[in-house]
């Protein structure tokens, strides 16, 4: 493996595929896209299996100086590795999900997806601040296109909203980046991650980055673009939006805000907590009353991502690792849920929950997959959702029991809205004739869903495969954060142990009968 620029290769393959798609007919484009994403995924597997756990922090590094200190520098740590794996894993699924659903401008559509893959891998692998910025922002352009061209009836409004929110954050972040590069005299991300920015500068730098990342996550109250974008996006667009693009915000926090501005992160932790607590309760309740399946899942995403943000700002290992696992899990699970919506949308062309019902009768295997992903979404132990949520909340509990209490109500509300959705779609009688006539999932749909289901269970039963690669990186980050970490609000005081068990009976002469109290 020495010397092989595998990261560049992983970007080159989809790039070549994208160009080929632009000049191909519809069917050829489908096969090219599938082939390119599968090859990229295979390269991803090579990448993962060659990643040396416990080795150097940055592996597979590549560097080429461009102009003015701006360099093409790539390299990954365990955190980036996992997010790249998530992206390349979901991509072939997206291509399959679009196989029949997209009929117009197929070549351009496939090219947009492949471009997006290039840019997402670039975002996670970039080691130069500006390179990151270019990938980070440019990665949204294919998404604008996918929503704006292949979206639903109200696609222009949705893509406009998406664009406006994003623009707002980006400008501030870019200004902050200029300042940082001028101050530290480097745009090398690993160096910046150890650079001691002065505390007062950290404050505004943190806020500038926060503006961008909070929109991407999205955090309440910057979340309203997400339901619209999801509703208008084609199925595969929703999968990538939920699966990968939402992770850019969390990745931004863990790569930039926390290591570069630890003091400011501690200072603003209360803000993150407050917004996250509101998000968990507020968006869960909003999800409960949605009549549109995609909106419901979109709102649930906001609630889940709030668990990510509290975990990240818990300043301890469990919180950080939990947040990462929630990101991976949510990428798989909400992606899969959007696929589930897509499967029935393709048949009936409506997302209205009330138009379905009793699907467990005519689509038993569909109902089974849907149930599995529903359970993973509400964090049933044994699925990926639980591991992430549990670690994240265990992390935050050590910082603040109040935040943990409020955020843990998400497990109740999440169960309520997801099971209410499941009941209306899969249970009950067959009230609509056309819904009752729908056939069960096809072989293509099996191939889309079964790997995700397997990954969800794998991450739930043996998450060590996913925890191990990032353990060292999280430890480094935690060490960097430890100086700034807020004190636990638990204030455990040992006290003098009681002499006897609570139900010890008074001995002989003592007639009071209240010995233990």
């Amino acid at each position, binding site marked *: 493996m020495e010397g092989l620029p595998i990261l560049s290769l992983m970007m080159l393959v989809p790039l070549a595929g994208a160009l080929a798609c632009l000049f191909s007919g519809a069917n050829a484009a489908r096969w090219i896209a599938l082939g390119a994403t599968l090859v990229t995924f295979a390269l991803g597997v090579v990448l993962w299996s060659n990643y040396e756990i416990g080795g150097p922090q940055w592996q597979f590094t590549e560097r080429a100086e461009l102009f003015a200190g701006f360099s093409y520098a790539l390299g990954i740590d365990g955190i980036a590795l996992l997010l790249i794996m998530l992206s390349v894993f979901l991509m072939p699924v997206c291509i399959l999900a679009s196989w029949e659903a997209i009929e117009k401008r197929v070549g351009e559509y496939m090219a947009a997806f492949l471009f997006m893959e290039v840019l997402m891998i670039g975002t996670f692998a970039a080691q130069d601040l500006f390179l990151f*910025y270019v990938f980070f922002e440019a990665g949204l352009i294919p998404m604008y296109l996918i929503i704006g061209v292949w979206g639903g009836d109200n696609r222009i409004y949705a893509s406009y909203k998406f664009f406006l929110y994003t623009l707002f954050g980006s400008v501030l972040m870019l200004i902050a980046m200029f300042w940082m590069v001028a101050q530290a005299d480097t745009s090398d991300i690993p160096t910046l991650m150890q650079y001691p920015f002065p505390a007062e500068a950290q404050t505004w730098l943190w806020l500038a980055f926060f503006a961008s990342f909070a929109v991407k996550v999205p955090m309440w109250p910057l979340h309203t673009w997400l339901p619209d974008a999801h509703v208008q996006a084609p199925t595969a667009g929703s999968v990538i939006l939920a699966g990968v693009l939402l992770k850019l915000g969390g990745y931004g926090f863990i790569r930039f805000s926390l290591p570069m501005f630890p003091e400011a992160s501690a200072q603003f932790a209360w803000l993150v907590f407050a917004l996250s607590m509101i998000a968990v309760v507020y968006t869960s309740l909003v999800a409960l009353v949605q009549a549109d399946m995609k909106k419901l899942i979109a709102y649930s995403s906001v609630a889940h991502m709030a668990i990510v943000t509290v975990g990240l700002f818990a300043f301890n290992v469990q919180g950080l690792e939990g947040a990462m696992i929630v990101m991976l899990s949510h990428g798989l699970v909400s992606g899969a849920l959007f696929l589930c919506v897509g499967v029935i949308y393709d048949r009936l062309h409506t997302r209205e929950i009330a138009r379905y019902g009793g699907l467990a009768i005519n689509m038993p295997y569909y109902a089974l997959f849907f149930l599995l992903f529903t359970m993973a979404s509400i964090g049933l132990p044994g699925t990926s959702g639980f591991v992430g949520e549990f670690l994240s909340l265990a992390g935050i509990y050590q910082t603040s029991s109040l935040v943990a209490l409020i955020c843990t109500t998400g497990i109740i509300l999440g169960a309520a809205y997801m099971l209410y959705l499941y009941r209306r779609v899969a249970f009950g009688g067959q009230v609509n004739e056309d819904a009752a006539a729908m056939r069960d999932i096809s072989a293509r749909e099996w191939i889309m869903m079964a790997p995700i289901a397997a990954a969800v269970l794998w991450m739930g*039963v043996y998450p060590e495969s996913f925890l191990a690669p990032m353990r060292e990186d999280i430890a480094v980050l935690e060490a960097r954060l430890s100086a700034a970490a807020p004190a636990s609000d638990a204030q*455990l005081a040992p006290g003098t142990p009681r002499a006897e068990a609570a139900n010890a009976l008074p001995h002989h002469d003592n007639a009071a009968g209240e010995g233990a109290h």
Partner: protein
Amino acid sequence: MNSILIIVFGPLLAALVAGLGNRMIGNVAAKSVTTGALFLSAGLSWPIFLGFLGGSETATVLPVLKWVESGTLSFDWSLRVDTLTAIMLVVINSVSALVHLYSWGYMEEDPDQPRFFAYLSLFTFAMLMLVTADNLVQMFFGWEGVGLASYLLIGFWFRKPSAGAAAIKAFVVNRVGDLGFMLGIFGTYLVFQTTSIPAILDMAPAMSGATITFVGMRLYTMDILCILLFIGAMGKSAQLGLHTWLPDAMEGPTPVSALIHAATMVTAGVFMLCRLSPMFETAPTALTIVTIVGAATCFFAATIGTTQWDIKRVIAYSTCSQLGYMFFAAGVGAYGAAMFHLFTHAFFKALLFLGAGSVIHAMHHEQDMRYYGGLRKKIPVTFWAMMAGTLAITGVGILGAFGFAGFYSKDAILEAAFARHNGAGQFAFWAGAVAALLTSFYSWRLMFLTFWGKPRWAQSEHIQHAVHDGHHDSDHDNAPRQEDAGHDAHHDVPSPEDHEGTAGYHPHESPVSMLLPLAILSLGAIFSGFVFHTQFIDGEAFWNGAIFYNEDLIHAMHGVPLWVKLTATVVMLIGLAGAYVAYIAKPDIPAKFVATFGALHNFVYRKWYFDELYDAIFVKPAFALGRAFWKLGDIGTIDRFGPNGIAWVVDRSATAAKSIQSGYVYTYALIMLLGLVAAVTYVLL
């Protein structure tokens, strides 16, 4: 001891085979695989239990697989077997195997049998993971796993809207408890830096004086941890406040009620308390709460049981009430007695449920006892099985000679509560005594209404269907059915003078596959108390450290005054006499009582209005808030002043820039990107 691997994972494999194979492998294969796996598990469990009973087995932990390691928080999959686990193994596997067998007959006509058996086996697997857990997180895995299986089985007849609603209710109410459980685990980890149960139990006594801040309150560390964990137990075991899901869970097929909602899953909370008993013994306030909640539940549920007409609901409230006994037994420190009652209750309550199922089967799915009557001669085997169950639950027996199962376990609990000699214990003793009276009353009421008197079947819709159709419609179970949903609206209560009671219907005794489990469970209901009471109550060596064994309390229990020992028997006789008078000797009394005390009866009959209350303070506001946040928050405020507001401003001021406005977002995006690249270049050059 690798038989534990087969015991635990056999049912999982069987569930996968039956569930995924489903129609491909067919009914008989699916049923054989699951039932076979369960009989194997049960067969392997008894030697382990008898080994602990004889003292030849010792506690073991078998590691299976690493699970999570995150900093100092790490926990693995492993299987712990000790006395406490061994008891649960025989209870779970025996009842589950019998319920599997019983379901061959009961579900004979259901079109969806593989799915049903897969769920049953899946449930058993989750329950086994729960009781073999060596750390709190695996216990939580089992805890939620049984919740999933319960959800699926309650909603098994998913075409019925009421089944879907009951399934969600069960899951969500349990999640309220799970919130407590999860916070309890987090807190335990915070304090002890581990989730390993033996390690926690070792360290707990040293923490008994410690204080901690929880949500701004300064509390005793062990008290708050135990209270949080107990909230989890309250949810799973349907204790007062979080009990509302259990009666609704009767929407599931009756074998499910017997296995999950009587014998095993609902006792998980009691199991948890016993497993963590050394920890709870460091938390006096938490134990007081446990005692009071348990005692209150025991009384409360028994009152409701006396007024219900649906045979399954009577038994469901009875279960809730009996669980209350187990909890207050644990609360006063009599963990052995709590486990003993769990053990005996599993047999006689499963028996009562399966017996009720047999009655329902005979009566063509009629569940309303007002349309029963005179069944003693028609279905004699079922009758005698139910009789054994009733004698066991009401605690019939003669001190020092012989008694049915409940006689030993319930007496032990009442004596322990009395002997504990504190306020909560006294409250529990009297609540338990009154509940015992009510238990006897509603149990005999059920027997008298069902098996004695004249047939009152004629006005039952189900019986009318059966008579008119002359055959069983093959998919009646999964058709949208009316029962449970609205008895009161659909039936007229027959008057006692109705002489045409049978409507020509002939109840049929159930097939052997159903009667055999009844017979075996009857043996349990008759003998399990007599055979095992010395070991469970006095067997410090038998427990061998698996629970907190309070020797002083056991001595005090045996030394309570004679009237205390006789209380249970006396109130049992009073309840029996009351039921006899009201339902056999003078059957017009209940109607008169209802006429006189209408408000009181309504209050109890409507289950103390808990459902209405929760609907008004939780369910409706949740939906209203959701709509308000959405319409007024997201749309009315954030969007209006956010993106839409900006759009409006831009629209007004952008006429000048019209030339470059193509209306397509990607044009903007490309311009933005180009601008950025230009800016970067400019600054850096």
